[in-house]
Each structure stands twice: as C-alpha cells, then as structure tokens.
C-alpha cells in the first residue's frame, strides 16, 4: 500500500516538482538574444563549457534505465551483467578520437544531427534520410525505457493501480510536465536539471556502496551469497565469472554497445552543444567518474541477493519485474526519507535523458525530413518551431508505447534499437575518417546489416521465459553451423557484414564508374576549433556561433 511509503512519496514529490520549476526557469539561464533558432533550442547555443558538459553528457549517457537494468541483470546472471563496465571504459577513448572530428565539422558547417553530416559528406539525401530514420526509430524505445525506470520506482512506493489509467496516471503527469518545459527551454532544461540529478545520484550510490555492505556483512559475504545463489540455479549462463560459452558474447556486447553509443543521436546532441574541442577532450578524462559509479551500482545486484530481495510482480500474472530490484533494495535497507531521495534520483534521472533524446529525435525530423523534403526554404526560426512540436510528438509516442503495450515490448525494441543504430556506423563514424565509400555502397551495406541483424534477433529464443523470438541479443553460433555452444552479440556481426558489403559494393560501383555524390567538407574542416568561422552554407541572416 502506498500509505506505508508516505515519507518516501513526499520526499520524491518535493524533489520532482522542485526540478520541474528548474526546467521552466532554464529558458532564462544563459539567455540568448532569441530562442527562435535551432542552435539555441536544440543545442543550448552550442556554448556549454566543461562543467555543464560533464553534467549534461553524464546525465545523458547514464540513464535511469541503465541504473535499474544493469543491477537487475547482475542480480539475474552475475558476471555477464558487468559488461557495462568495459563498455563504459571503451567509449571515452573512442569519443576522444571520433566525436572531436564530428564537433569540428559540425561547427564549420552548422550541422545539428549525425544525418546532417552524412548529407554534407556523401551528398546523398537518401542516405541521410536512412540515417535519420534509423536514429529516430532507435531513440523512441529508448525514451520509453526511461518511463520503465520511473515506473519501477513508483511501483516500489506502492503508487500503482488496478486499471491501466490509474497505473499510468503519475507517469502521464510527469511526462506532461517534462514535455512542457522541454518545449519552452529546449536543451537548457536537461542541462540545468542534470546538475541536480547527478548530484543526487552520486550521493545515493556512494552512501549505498558504503552503507549496504556494513548492513550485510561486508562485500566478502555479499559475493558469498551471490555465489551460493548461482550454484543453486539451474541456468547455465550465470555465475560470478564468465564461462567458456559467454566470453565472446561479453566482449562483442561491450564493444558493440560502445560503438552504438556514439551513434545515438542524443550522444551527438550532448557533444555538439559544447563550446570547443578542448571541452570535449577534457571531459573524456572526467566522464569515467560515472563509469565507476555504474560499476559500483552494478554490484548492488549482488547486495540485493545477499539482502534476500524479491522482485515485485510484473505486468502479466506470474511474471516478475526484475527492474524493481534496486528500488526494493533501497526501500528495504534505507530509512524512509533517504529511500525517497534515492527514488527521486532515479526518477529525475529519467527526465534528463528523456528530454535530450526527444530533442535529438526532433532535430533529426526537422533537419533531415522537414527541411530536406517538406520545406527547403525553412528559416532557423521555423526549424526551431517544428523541432519543438516534434519533441512533443516523440514524447507522446513514447508514452503510448508504455501505456498501451507490454513494457517488455519497449525493452525488446531497445535491444533491437542498439542493433539498428550500429548500422549507421560506416556512414557516420567511418565517414568521419574517410570519404572512400560510395554513397550507394553505404546504402547497400545498411540494407545488408539491417536484414541480417533482424533475422538473427528473430532467431533468438529463450526457453526459460517461453519466448520464441527476439528474446535477447546473444546469438548462438551453432545456428551458423559452428560446433559450439558459444554466443555472440548480434549487432557486432550485423555491422561487420554491413562494412563488408559497403566495401565490396564500393569496389563494384567504382569499377562501373557510377556517379558518386559531392563532398561538401574538406580535410581541414575536421580539425577546426571555435576560432574558425562557420562556412556560409545557409548563411542568410543566420547568426554565426562564433564571436
């Protein structure tokens, strides 16, 4: 019953509404001359310094869903769930090498989205459209998952109901508020809220990591309890260490997820909002602080085992919602008021990425669909207007996903999302380094990788849950005819095939002397810093970002 959780609910509500006020105030923060420009609404003026970027990108990449799902995975499977740590170690050197180039070329040409870059680099509106649609489709379920994060917390506080509407009313209210202040303040809202969110998360996790072991007999005892659980379980894949069959999956999942992360439109939005190259590079040394946090948080999955946590029931009769592991652990072990703070941290933690993701998806729509196909003469003010409305549509879509469909469906879609966003790797990431690929070949590779990825995901069954298709991302290699029980991450195989097709098709198209698109960028564009002026691509009355 919710009455037993009254203190938690009050603390949660106070923090949540306090943050909402901040979201509206954000439109006045670092106030621009006009908000009626996509650079202002959608990229916060492209002028964030090191600190803001640290909070913003940290709040963007480490989502509420990550914070509930990773410990849940560790709770269920053990070592396999720890892939999040190598994954978040690898991303920063990759960002350092790749996204700095994207920042420079975007600064020079006034690009807002990854698809904008593809459009400029390969001179192909079709390829840019594919990249934009891939980005939007991959981002939508990711936003929906943030709601899953909030729901896990609300459920733990007993804020739930019998009817669909009663169960989802708090989420609908929360999302309506989020939609309103994102509409008004754009990227400034999540940037400002991220300060509160990240501070709360740091406090909660640090307290949890020191307080919980003292309650549960120390980390040695916690790992002992986890070992006993995995020994008793009949499942083959779990344990405190990896086994011969899931090591390849662990490696390819960590690497593939890292490659996928910087292709997600919302990561690009966070990075392009920074002031210069130095801000980005310096942040690559500072952002791993969040990885440490995530690693410690992951191990709370073991603490939940030692504390005897039982996950709350899921949406369907007989199922359990493992995402409630961490909230239930906090509810059980912390005093009520601090559990309230912890829940607010997760709840607010969902708002920051949800806002940035909806802005990123809206920018993709505006720049690569609306401006490219519907209104070529759109002014910056019109772009900003369209983006604001599109961000509302995106959020309503995500909300409908959660209210009307089984939440499991969003989780599946997110899994698929990681595989499909990887298919933009040759055009976006490799494109930053080389113009060798033919635009037609990149489309060929995209189709091949996408087709194979979907087929592989379709083939994956999980007998334990009775699901025949789309039951995970670990593809058994024996289906390719190998005599092994080992599994591999679908996205990794799909993107390899994508690259192979893109290379072969490039050779064929070049041999056939098929016309390639023009490249609007030059070698030096990938290295310029804030001191270089923007090129006048659509410079009619457009304010230039540099002084």
């Amino acid at each position: 019953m919710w009455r037993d959780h009254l203190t938690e609910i009050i603390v949660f509500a106070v923090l949540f509404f306090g943050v909402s006020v901040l979201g509206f105030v954000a439109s006045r923060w670092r106030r621009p001359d006009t908000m009626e420009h996509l650079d202002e609404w959608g990229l916060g003026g492209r002028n964030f310094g090191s600190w803001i970027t640290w909070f913003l990108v940290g709040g963007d990449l480490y989502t509420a869903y990550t914070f509930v799902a990773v410990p849940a995975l560790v709770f269920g499977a053990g070592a396999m769930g720890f892939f999040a740590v190598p994954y978040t170690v690898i991303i920063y050197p990759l960002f350092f090498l790749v996204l700095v180039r994207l920042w420079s070329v975007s600064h020079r040409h006034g690009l807002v989205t990854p698809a904008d870059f593809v459009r400029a680099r390969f001179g192909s509106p079709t390829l840019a459209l594919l990249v934009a649609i891939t980005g939007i489709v991959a981002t939508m379920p990711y936003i929906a998952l943030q709601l899953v994060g909030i729901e896990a917390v609300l459920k733990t506080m007993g804020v739930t109901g019998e009817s669909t509407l009663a169960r989802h009313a708090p989420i609908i209210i929360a999302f309506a508020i989020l939609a309103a202040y994102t509409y008004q303040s754009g990227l400034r809202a999540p940037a400002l809220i991220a300060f509160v969110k990240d501070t709360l998360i740091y406090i909660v996790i640090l307290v949890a990591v020191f307080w919980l072991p003292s309650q549960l007999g120390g980390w040695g005892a916690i790992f002992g309890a986890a070992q006993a659980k995995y020994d008793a379980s009949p499942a083959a894949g779990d344990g405190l260490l990896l086994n011969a069959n899931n090591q390849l999956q662990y490696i390819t999942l960590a690497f593939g997820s890292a490659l996928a992360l910087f292709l997600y439109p919302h990561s690009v939005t966070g990075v392009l909002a920074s002031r210069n190259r130095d801000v980005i590079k310096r942040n690559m040394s500072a952002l791993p602080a969040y990885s440490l946090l995530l690693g410690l948080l992951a191990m709370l999955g073991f603490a939940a085992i030692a504390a005897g946590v039982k996950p709350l029931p899921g949406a369907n009769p007989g199922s359990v919602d493992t995402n409630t592991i961490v909230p239930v652990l906090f509810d059980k072990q912390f005093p009520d008021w601090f559990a309230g703070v912890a829940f607010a941290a997760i709840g607010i933690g969902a708002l920051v990425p949800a806002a940035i993701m909806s802005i990123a998806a809206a920018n993709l729509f505006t720049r690569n669909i609306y401006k490219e196909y519907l209104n070529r003469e759109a002014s910056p003010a019109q772009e900003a207007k369209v983006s604001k409305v599109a961000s509302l549509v995106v959020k309503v879509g995500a909300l409908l996903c959660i209210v009307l469909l089984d939440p499991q469906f969003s989780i599946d879609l997110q899994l698929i999302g990681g595989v499909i966003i990887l298919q933009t790797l040759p055009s976006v990431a490799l494109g930053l380094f080389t113009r060798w690929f033919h635009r037609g070949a990149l489309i060929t590779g995209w189709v091949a990788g996408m087709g194979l990825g979907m087929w592989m995901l379709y083939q994956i069954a999980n007998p334990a849950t009775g699901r025949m298709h789309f039951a995970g991302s670990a593809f058994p290699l024996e289906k390719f005819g190998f005599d092994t029980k080992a599994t591999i991450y679908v996205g990794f195989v799909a993107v390899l095939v994508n690259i192979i097709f893109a290379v072969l098709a490039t050779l064929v198209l070049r041999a056939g002397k098929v016309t390639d698109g023009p490249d609007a960028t030059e070698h030096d564009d990938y290295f310029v810093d804030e001191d270089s002026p923007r090129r006048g691509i659509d410079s009619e009355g457009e304010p230039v970002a540099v002084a």
Partner: protein
Amino acid sequence: MGEPAPDRRPGDRDHSPWNWLLIVPIVLPLITTFYNASSPDLLGFPRFYWQQLSYILVGVATTTLVYRMTKLTRRRDGEG
C-alpha cells in the same frame, strides 16, 4: 581555453602519435582472459570485478595524458 595557433593549418594539430596510446584502454577491457578469475580478491571483491574497475583508472590516465601531450605540442607549434 588555450590560445589558437593562428598561422597553422588546423589539420596539423591533430596528427599526434600520442593518439595511438588510446588503443590501450580500448583493447585492454576486451581481453577477458586477463581478468576472468576470482583470486586474488581485494577488499572482498573477486579479481573479475576489481580489475575491471581498475581499467577505468587506466582509461582516465590515458585520455588525460594524450590530452596534455597533444595540447603541449599545439602550444609549441604556436610559438614556433
């Protein structure tokens, strides 16, 4: 912010051999045979867990070093 070097081609700034060092924190966490063991443990954490957490420090050290070294090169270029 560091002062820009005015008369250089911007492309010259970024071609530092130090960048190759970034391969270390990309590859190291992917070699599971280095850390897929429970002993020795540290503060109750099996090796699998503490060693991977220590790679975060390796990553921070490497990106910081590369950032500093490439920045120094740039400043020297500017003075030259």
